[in-house]
């Protein structure tokens, strides 16, 4: 049953053209949380001198993962849209590592969802980045 939900959510994410282009893959969906992987790709480098992935790609990962966490919430509506998203970059991701984002929708009202997320590359306990966002909850009328 849980595996089934993850499969459906993974399919949903891979059907988003930009998520597909970035190679994002959803690996887990919970009851108000989600985990998405961003594999290393040289096309996503932000500075040739260092080979580090651009912050913009991390933003895209965080935005997608936060949106997935909102849709995983039992009180979610039919769709969601980002109102705002803040990303703090703790350190550069190590080149050639996959970046994994975990997002949690920790509160939902009738129209707004509150989300936080963390991104790791598996090389340190310090996250690569953290995110805080609010999302509009669109309900069927």
């Amino acid at each position, binding site marked *: 049953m849980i595996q089934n939900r993850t499969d459906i959510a993974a399919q949903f994410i891979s059907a988003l053209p930009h998520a597909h282009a970035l190679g994002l893959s959803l690996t887990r969906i919970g009851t108000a949380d989600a985990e998405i992987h961003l594999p290393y790709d040289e096309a996503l480098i932000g500075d040739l001198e260092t080979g580090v992935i651009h912050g913009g790609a991390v933003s895209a990962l965080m*935005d997608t993962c936060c949106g997935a966490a909102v849709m995983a919430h039992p009180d979610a509506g039919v769709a969601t849209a980002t109102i705002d*998203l803040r*990303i703090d*970059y703790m350190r550069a991701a190590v080149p050639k590592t996959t970046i994994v984002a975990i997002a949690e929708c920790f509160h939902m009202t009738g129209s707004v969802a509150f989300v936080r997320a963390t991104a790791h590359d598996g090389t340190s306990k310090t996250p690569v980045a953290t995110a805080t966002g609010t999302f509009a909850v669109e309900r069927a009328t």
Partner: protein
Amino acid sequence: MTRATPEPVQVIKTRRNSALEALKARVPYAAYLGVEFERHGDELTTVLPFRADLVGNPALQALHGGATAAFLEITAQVVLSWSVIWPLVEAGGAVESVPTLPKTIDITVDYLRSGLPRDAYARAKITRAGRRFSSVHVQAWQDNVDRPFAMATGHFMMPDHV
């Protein structure tokens, strides 16, 4: 008293444009998204031509929020970097060696309306140009410059040797 003859316009343009090309070449992710840079003197406007693989919501054909965020962050970072490069270029310095790029400390993106399936444009304003930290505000629009669809404020760590 004699005044130095001004450099021919084409010499100046070539030097400025090759400096901008060198900066672009440093950021493969900007090329991946298809971001273009339009320069008028020292002013930069970035362009994100619409592409099907930038879409987040297939039903609405709306731009992916992540693509929008990336576009804003690239604009902020490149404009900040350009502000460092510009005086070096004007002083006639070597333009092929790009100084280390500013690093994003944080960025907050506001989504004001949904991004339509068409080209987007962005301009950044450096609100604080510090020795160690700089603050940048960016706005992106599509059809109407007075109706931005997204904006962002970010803080950046400036490279040491500047």
